[in-house]
């Protein structure tokens, strides 16, 4: 069953268009209506999104769905609507004001090529607030906020959007006879389309600058800005690409997620804190996670917090691990039970803690790190030398294996098991080797 052909997409609810006499917006709204009549879409499948400014008064005249949004942000809502429902025709009506405050969205929608239609009603100033200058006000143009003449160079919106990757860009005026056909072209483009329409603001800009139709056309001519079709270069649309990637992702296996069963025993009677400190790039964080997962295999609960600079491969990397047979409420370590130091960076980052260490704390420090006087028990161990056969990335695993072997918190086998289950594939064998090295190293290690 075909719906009857519509003669207009404007409603009669509000009577005549309430724009100032001679305002270009009225002509533009009528041209959009003529374009919709040509296309005959179902009104519920069209969303007209308007921005703030006089053009924002226009959505109420259409019988389609509509959204009048925040100043400069209409493009963002339109993108959300289009991404959510690609079958809809989404048309944004924005003024030159919106192009200033929302310039980033203008550039980014062009760059992404999201298939919305943007129609810019460019009347060269802010009509709604009394005629202040906008980003498109001509140089030396007179407005209420630059009565001596505009000293700012206007943005060539079309050239800017074309440079940002706009796949369909057109500049015209409300006086163009074929404006509605151009609008049809913009709506039918399979990608982002932008149509900039120059207009007269008969309330402010036109009288202040003694502009009429002829004057506006002459001004456009003198601006040096191109008119007509400025870009028409179809390329893949954003949401189509997004869906294609989405399908590909479905075939990828999710990461090594598996429940952690309680397999091994442990000797941990109360909540204990372990501080693991080294250098960025030493795999401190991933080793801490493996250690915590191992403790879970041994029936414990664990927490892990990491501290590192925003850079990679530079500076310290510190992980704090808490183990407990009970649920862990307080996740800070005020007084660690074990400190594992595998580099000078790690020591520098944790130095503040040392004067508070008690005799209940055991330190496993890399050979050569000069520790301050503490009450803690200390082991000084040549982790790096022992790790030579397996490389720098596994030093931390060696150190944690030493800690486990000496402390007896839970079996080393749990650590190896966690490595087999959760370690990156390319690091698995090295890490398992590191556990064996740590076990041997622990046997040779004596307290200082």
């Amino acid at each position: 069953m075909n719906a009857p052909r519509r003669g207009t997409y404007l409603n009669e609810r509000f009577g005549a268009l309430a724009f100032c006499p001679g305002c270009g917006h009225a002509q533009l709204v009528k041209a959009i209506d003529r374009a919709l009549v040509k296309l005959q879409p179902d009104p519920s499948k069209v969303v007209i999104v308007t921005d703030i400014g006089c053009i924002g008064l226009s959505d109420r005249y259409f019988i389609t769905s509509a959204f009048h949004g925040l100043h400069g942000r209409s493009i963002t809502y339109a993108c959300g609507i289009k991404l959510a429902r690609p079958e809809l025709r989404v048309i944004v009506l924005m003024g030159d004001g919106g192009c200033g405050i929302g310039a980033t969205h203008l550039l980014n929608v062009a760059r992404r090529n999201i298939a919305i239609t943007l129609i810019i009603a460019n009347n060269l100033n802010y009509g709604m607030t009394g005629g202040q200058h906008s980003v498109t006000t001509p140089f030396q143009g007179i407005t209420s906020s630059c009565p001596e003449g505009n000293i700012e160079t206007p943005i060539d919106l079309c050239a800017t959007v074309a440079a940002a990757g706009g796949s369909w860009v057109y500049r015209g005026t409300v006086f163009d006879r074929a404006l509605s056909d151009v609008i049809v072209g913009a709506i039918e483009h399979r990608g982002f389309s932008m149509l900039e329409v120059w207009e007269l603001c008969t309330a402010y800009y036109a009288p202040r600058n003694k502009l009429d139709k002829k004057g506006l056309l002459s001004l456009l001519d003198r601006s040096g800005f191109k008119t007509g079709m400025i870009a028409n270069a179809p390329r893949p649309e954003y949401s189509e690409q997004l869906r294609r990637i989405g399908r590909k992702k479905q075939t990828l296996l999710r990461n090594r997620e598996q429940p952690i069963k309680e397999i091994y025993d442990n000797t941990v009677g109360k909540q204990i804190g372990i501080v693991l400190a080294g250098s960025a790039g030493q795999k401190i964080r991933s080793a801490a996670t493996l250690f915590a997962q191992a403790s879970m295999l041994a029936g414990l609960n664990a927490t892990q917090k990491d501290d590192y600079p925003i850079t990679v491969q530079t500076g310290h990397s510190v992980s704090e691990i808490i183990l407990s047979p009970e649920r862990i409420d307080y996740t800070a370590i005020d007084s660690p039970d074990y400190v594992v130091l595998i580099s000078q960076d790690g020591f520098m980052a944790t130095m503040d803690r040392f004067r508070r260490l008690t005799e209940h704390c055991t330190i496993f420090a890399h050979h050569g790190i000069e520790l301050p006087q503490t009450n803690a028990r200390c082991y000084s161990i040549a982790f790096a030398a022992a790790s030579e056969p397996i490389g720098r990335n596994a030093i931390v695993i060696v150190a944690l294996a030493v800690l486990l072997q000496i402390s007896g918190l839970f079996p080393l086998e749990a650590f190896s098991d966690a490595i087999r289950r959760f370690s990156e594939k390319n690091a698995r064998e090295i890490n398992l080797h590191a556990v064996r090295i740590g076990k041997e190293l622990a046997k040779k290690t004596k307290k200082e």
Partner: protein
Amino acid sequence: MGREFIDGNRAIARGALRAKCDFFASYPITPATTILQEMQASLPDNQGIAIQAEDEIAAIGFCIGASMAGRKVMTATSGPGMSLYSENIGLALMCETPLVIVDVQRQGPATGSATKGADSDILFSRWITSSGLPVIALCPATIEEAYELTYHAFNLAEKFRAPVIVLSNKEISMTRETVDLDRVKLQPVINRNRVLPDEAVFLPHAFTRPDEVPPFADFGGDRVTRHTTSTHDQAAYLTSHPRIIQEMIDHYFAKIDSAAEEIARVKTDFQQDAETLIISYGITSRSVAVAVREARSRGIKLSSLVLQTLWPTPEKAIRSAMTGVKKVVVPEMNMGQYRREIERLSPPEVKLVGVAKMNTQLLTPQEILEQGTVL
């Protein structure tokens, strides 16, 4: 899934997916960034969309548009991004747009400490936008609660056609813990009411009683619908009529305020004859749990009330917990933002003691006991 070792941000993403979230947009910001990564890794499998926007304003704008087109949407940020969300949160309140906003709080103000925790945005979340319309804000204390409350936030957003803020904290979102999310009990998924009346002209904000939640028409559905950021009537057309404007404002208030008890979630650990009560929320409530055990082991009677809903204020639960106690301690990982809410509700004879710290470190159980003069 069973026992696993995950951080709060992963749990937040899981909660969203479990609630059938199918649209996510955000701008990268520590400590919320990994929510974007989790959603990007997961959503395409669920016919969803997860994208990185050019800024926070675009992120929430995308979400609002997608929600209006029928998606279940979420965005995630930290304090600086909340500032940029502000105007659009006002719009979402006004357009009655379901929307879940995760604020992984960090030490503020401004850029503050990007990788350090604080409950910086407790009052900010309440007064985030012009007009003072009521908002809903939930505050998890654990990773399980981050999962559960994110899930629940979707139900509230859909039920009340409103933005709902989840106030996480770096200390929850970026800490890994042993959890078993299968053991978290969840209510059934709620979707917005889409049963539309037959009338020729659809009213996007239809209500008879001010506390009614209007049915929602998706963009692209069978009915033409409208939304507007401007002061409007039930048909979503601009109005300057003072009576209608007041009716709409009353509606926004009544819708949330009348449901305050339904939205209120608290956890209680009361002790008979305790003269001291600790009221806390979020990550600090976990230090409180340790402090309470410590005090009780020393023979001190002590009660604890933990708030999971911060806005609207769970007034009834707070008032009831304060009945009969002599002292209320309010420890916070900020300079005492929620204390004034408690103060407003406390009987004159109750002594209120705030414990405030905002140096990126957790309040220790000892600080709570000592500065709260519990010992």
